[in-house]
């Protein structure tokens, strides 16, 4: 009775302990990378795109860098920052990875940032775009190979004012940091170029019925700038069209509103929408066309920026590892190499980092068009060498608060 219980409990404890016996790898064993993303739950599809992109990149170099094998441990954050932290701990303390990459949710990024510096583990933010991660709350040991939320919208604001000729724009964006930062970037440059933001609507994240918001949109605006993500990107254009707005007010938006992630599920209601992003599957370079073809062959769908950013993140790590001759164990040298990597032929074009660890890259203005019965984001204009600070001096830019609901203020509302 009690003996059995004792035995059982001890057995369980022993089992639990043995679970984690990992042999210490000798110095020149494989390069171990940890990839953190959401593999289950609501954002699982994004996580899959990310891990697919990441793995595909490594497979193209036969999973080897400078003669050393590369091992990737993919961990599921479950969309929960606390889980992300636990996984990071496991990757660093148990698996002893040499670097960590991935992450797409802003709250996961913010949760991990202090820990990354505490562990001094070289980290690559592949997708997460929360502005402050490379601005006011930078992480010393991390670089970003994706974008900041406001980055594409700075040039786009100018574009909307000067090229599209809009003077009065109403914005409708998901009410959380990503939406605020996207609108903030757009508003700033749009108004500096002479435009006026006449209305800012903020549907809560997860809104399924945009009716109450669509009804409020000022009918005398020139266009509507919409920032939608994932499922809301799917339902917004149709509701917009059905509410009779598409005919009257051209729809422009943040890149994620019409990203390749949702395009296959959208219909004709999306045609004509213009949005800026760091990538488009329709970029007409041999490198990108090859990338799209291979990805499509392997995974059955057109890659969006989640996949491309992760694909490039893997390449980034490989380049940095090559630069230090494969000696990724020297964290400081490896980190320095990560910050110095420059890639001129990523699927999205040339990328290099600014001093804050964020990419300087092309921004593509895309328009949704139908080609061979499919929807594509045709590139109609390219802005080259765009940094997260656009044309502003970094010090000036950082003096101002991060974009949020009320910054910049809505002067013409």
């Amino acid at each position, binding site marked *: 009775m009690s003996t059995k219980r004792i035995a059982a409990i001890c057995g369980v404890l022993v089992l639990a302990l043995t679970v984690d016996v990992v042999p210490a790898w000798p110095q020149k064993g494989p390069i171990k990378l940890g990839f953190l993303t959401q593999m289950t739950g609501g954002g699982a599809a994004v996580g899959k795109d990310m891990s697919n992109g990441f793995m595909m990149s490594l497979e193209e170099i036969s999973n080897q860098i400078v003669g050393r094998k590369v091992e990737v441990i993919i961990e599921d954050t479950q969309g929960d920052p606390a889980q992300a932290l636990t996984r990071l701990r496991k990757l660093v*303390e148990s698996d002893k990875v040499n670097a960590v990459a991935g992450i797409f949710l802003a709250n996961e990024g913010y949760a991990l940032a202090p820990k990354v510096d505490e562990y001094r583990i070289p980290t690559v933010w592949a997708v997460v775009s929360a502005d402050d991660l490379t601005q006011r709350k930078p992480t010393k040991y991390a670089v970003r190979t994706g974008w900041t939320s406001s980055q594409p919208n700075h040039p786009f604001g100018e574009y909307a004012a000067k090229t599209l000729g809009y003077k009065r724009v109403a914005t409708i964006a998901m009410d959380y940091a990503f939406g605020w930062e996207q609108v903030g970037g757009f508003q700033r440059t749009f108004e500096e170029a002479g435009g006026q933001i006449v209305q800012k609507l903020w549907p809560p994240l997860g809104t399924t019925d945009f009716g109450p918001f669509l009804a409020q949109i000022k009918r005398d605006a020139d266009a509507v700038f919409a920032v939608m993500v994932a499922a809301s990107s799917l339902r917004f254009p149709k509701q917009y069209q059905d509410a009779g707005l598409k005919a009257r007010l051209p729809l422009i938006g943040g890149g994620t509103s019409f990203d390749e992630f949702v395009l296959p599920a959208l219909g004709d209601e999306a045609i004509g929408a213009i949005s800026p992003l760091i990538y488009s599957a329709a970029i007409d370079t041999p490198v990108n066309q090859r990338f799209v073809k291979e990805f499509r062959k392997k995974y059955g769908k057109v890659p969006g920026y989640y996949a491309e950013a992760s694909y490039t993140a893997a390449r980034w790590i490989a380049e940095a590892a090559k630069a230090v001759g494969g000696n990724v164990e020297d964290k400081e040298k490896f980190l320095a190499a990560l910050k110095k990597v420059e890639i001129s032929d990523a699927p999205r074009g040339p990328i290099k980092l600014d001093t804050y660890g964020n990419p300087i890259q092309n921004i593509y203005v895309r328009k949704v068009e139908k080609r061979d019965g499919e929807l594509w984001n045709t590139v109609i204009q390219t802005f080259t060498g765009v940094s997260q600070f656009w044309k502003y001096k970094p010090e000036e830019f950082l003096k101002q608060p991060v974009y949020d609901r009320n910054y910049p203020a809505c002067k013409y509302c």
Partner: protein
Amino acid sequence: MGLTRFSGQQVVAAIIFFLLLASPPFLSSFLLTLLTQALIYGILAMSLDIILGYTGLASLGHAAYFGIGAYSVGILATRYGAAFGITLPAGVLLAVLVAAIFGTVALRATGVYFLMITLALGMIVWGLAHRWVTMTQGDNGISAIPRPDLGLPWSLSLSIPFYYFALAGFLIAFWILRVIVRSPFGQTLVGIRESESRMRTLGYHVWLHKYIGFVIAGGFGGFAGVLWAYYNGFVSPVDLQLATSVEVLLMVALGGRGSLIGPALGAGIIVLLKNLVSVYTHRWLLILGAVYILTIVYAPEGILGAIKRRTKEVKPRAVGVHGLTEGEIEGG
């Protein structure tokens, strides 16, 4: 009859206690962090046991108090640089206050209605965490919460000292709660669980007892939340979503309600399950779901209940409610 079983239990308890105390230096740091998490969730589960196990009220909104404790720390520590001496009482007191307010509303009902009201109240707190962005940073959560500086020779920023810190918290909570449940007050709660009407006719102020139990549960939930915020260095609305409240219910049910130790054990199992299983398979949700179902089917009285039954050598019953027949269940 009594002596062998009694010392058997004591021996097991002593062994577990010894292991908890002595094993940290030998465990991998990943496992250590899991144990720390298990201890903190153990406190939360024990706090829920007060109203669920001892008073017989199932709440679908208990994560709210967890979140209140955690957010208090988050806001006070990062915005005002408050030390542990302030954040701890603030977090617990705020949780107590909210429980006191919510209790007046929730305790007007029992059974299914109580479930629904606590669900709604929990959603209100979650909604606030989500939308009151100026306070809570909304979805982004509050990050970079520094570990408390207690002036000890060992920095709590390291995993082993913090583990002992959490262990101390757990033991203190356990000891206080144990005193409470063994007191006449605690016995009255059990009596209320068994039959409210009987207690009323015996002259007990039933509502007041339930209320105090509810508030105590909220307070200790807040305490767990305070530790959680320091452990993670981060707090976000995910910590108090509906799924978390349901998970705490599972911890209590799995371990064996009405025993304090049971829920703590249940917490440990669930924490280990979620973290270890997901290392080996992405299908951990399936397994977790199965655990929910299998618990109710095979061990409705929880693991401790099953063990107790075994040792008493009584044939297992398939009834799910702890000691109650259908006629004596309140509400609905």
